[in-house]
């Protein structure tokens, strides 16, 4: 009796182990890569029965193609509305307008500027898309990077830009019927002999906004099992067909160890199971240059502190927010990186209880990570990171 009980229990354990994690459904996968939009590549992956017994299901394939085309058209539309390099875009026309001028814009530009204002207020100004001039002066987003510390913009010039960007909250948005308007703050500063008015760069929010729209298109087309990865900056996770529906989100090690010019060890420092979530991430490793001074090499990255008008020096190397809207998360990760560790922790505790947040910190003596995810809700892959 005892033997048979033990054998029975073993068989049950074995079956449970195998069946519990086995694929619920056998999907074939199909993906499409999109051309550059907002200077980035976007990848859509949908899981569906595209093939049955080796025969292509043309109806499902055609539906996927229509969905992909819809997303592609949406991305291109956003690019022509939000780009700062395309002169005819809503944002470029707004930037070119005089101080105090009211500019008619499209619905997407209106929505993105609304989100930008909301997050600017939520983060007490740590997210501010009006750092346009500083970003250009330090050689990002079309500017020319300085070749030496002597070529960095002067403090006086930067302080003018900070004064100007501080008026972002004075930007007003209005809607009249089906028309949308943005009025520029009636404020200018004199810099290098000319009067300049406020300009915005919403690159820090545009990809997330696009991801949110892709999420809606996937839902409207009935896709439950899918993901949309916009340049690894904003990702929409629906469900994965296996593993209980969960994807594994790996967050890139911001300071990977190198051996003979290649990464040593895994690319990510942490794994987090996710599904049905929008994720956005920012890192100082994505776009940066280094200049040598008397103290050694200094990293200048594309994430700016609106209060200094300079690339962040907070020690935060990367930030990721899971849950909620990707557009908001895109802006929030930028703000967290500018806040610094202590302020960021306070902000996350007070404002982001319903989202999962992770950030990494270079303390000067080692690397730490902060997260509001409970122990057991993630897997630390790189043990050289310790928890804050």
């Amino acid at each position, binding site marked *: 009796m*005892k033997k048979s009980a*033990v054998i029975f229990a073993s068989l049950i354990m*074995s079956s449970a182990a195998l069946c519990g994690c086995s694929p619920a459904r056998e999907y074939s996968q199909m993906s499409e890569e999109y051309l550059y939009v907002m200077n*980035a590549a976007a990848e859509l992956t949908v899981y569906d029965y595209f093939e049955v017994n080796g025969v292509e299901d043309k109806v499902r394939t055609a539906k996927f193609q229509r969905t992909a085309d819809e997303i592609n058209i949406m991305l291109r539309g956003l690019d022509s509305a939000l780009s700062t390099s395309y002169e005819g875009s809503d944002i470029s026309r707004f930037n070119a307008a005089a101080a105090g001028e009211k500019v008619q814009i499209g619905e997407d530009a209106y929505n993105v500027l609304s989100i930008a204002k909301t997050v600017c207020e939520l983060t007490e100004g740590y997210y501010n898309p009006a750092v346009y001039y500083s970003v250009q002066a330090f050689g990002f987003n079309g500017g020319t990077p300085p070749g030496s510390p002597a070529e960095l913009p002067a403090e006086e010039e930067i302080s003018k830009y900070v004064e100007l960007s501080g008026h972002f909250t004075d930007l007003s948005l209005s809607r009249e019927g089906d028309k949308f308007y943005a009025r520029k703050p009636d404020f200018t500063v004199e810099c290098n002999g000319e009067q300049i008015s406020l300009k915005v760069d919403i690159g820090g929010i545009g990809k997330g906004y696009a991801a949110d729209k892709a999420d809606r298109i996937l839902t409207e087309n009935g896709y439950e099992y899918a993901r949309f*990865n916009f340049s690894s900056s904003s990702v929409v996770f629906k469900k994965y067909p296996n593993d209980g529906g969960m994807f594994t989100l790996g967050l890139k090690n911001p300071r990977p160890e190198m051996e003979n010019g290649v990464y040593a060890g895994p690319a990510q420092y942490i794994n987090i199971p996710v599904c049905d979530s929008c994720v956005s991430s920012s890192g100082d490793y994505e776009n940066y240059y280094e200049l040598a001074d008397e103290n050694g090499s200094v990293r200048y990255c594309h994430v700016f502190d609106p209060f200094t008008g300079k690339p962040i020096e907070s020690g935060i190397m990367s930030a990721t927010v899971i849950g909620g809207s990707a557009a908001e998360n895109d802006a929030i990760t930028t703000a967290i990186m500018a806040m610094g560790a202590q302020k960021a922790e306070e902000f996350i505790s007070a404002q982001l209880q319903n989202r999962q947040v992770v950030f990494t910190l270079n303390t000067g003596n080692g690397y730490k990570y902060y997260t509001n995810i409970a122990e057991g809700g993630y897997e630390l892959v790189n043990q050289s990171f310790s928890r804050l």
Partner: protein
Amino acid sequence: MSLKKIQQVKKDRGFKIADLIVYGAILLLVAATFLAVFIPRDNSPLAGVRACVGSKVLFEYDFEKGEYSSFSADVTVSGGEVLSVRIEVNGGYNVLEINKSKRTAKIVEADCRGKDCVHTPAISDNSGIIYCSPHGLKIVPFGLKEDNTVII
């Protein structure tokens, strides 16, 4: 029940040594089955690699046949024992190096930001992957199993 039988049952151990061996073997079998099914890494020699953008294959090299196939005018192949494959993609380029004798594939040059793909170790078995996120280019082994991991 006789008194003798009761005493025998009382003396009897919960598990005899032979029983424990059988139970241990069963547990090992369960563990081995679990590991065989769920360890996805495939360390068998690299059979071949594909360079893809989404589901579109641009180039592939078959180590078994020692042959390559190019499916795009944007792919330029040169070299002999070490093939140099230049792929123009999404406004940039990546150079894939195929070492026939070592059975490895590695991106050695690219004009993308960050150059993650260049720093990614060579693919040497059927479990590796190289991804150039800015260009949307993936280098994958022939036998790569579906993976649910997304690294950002």
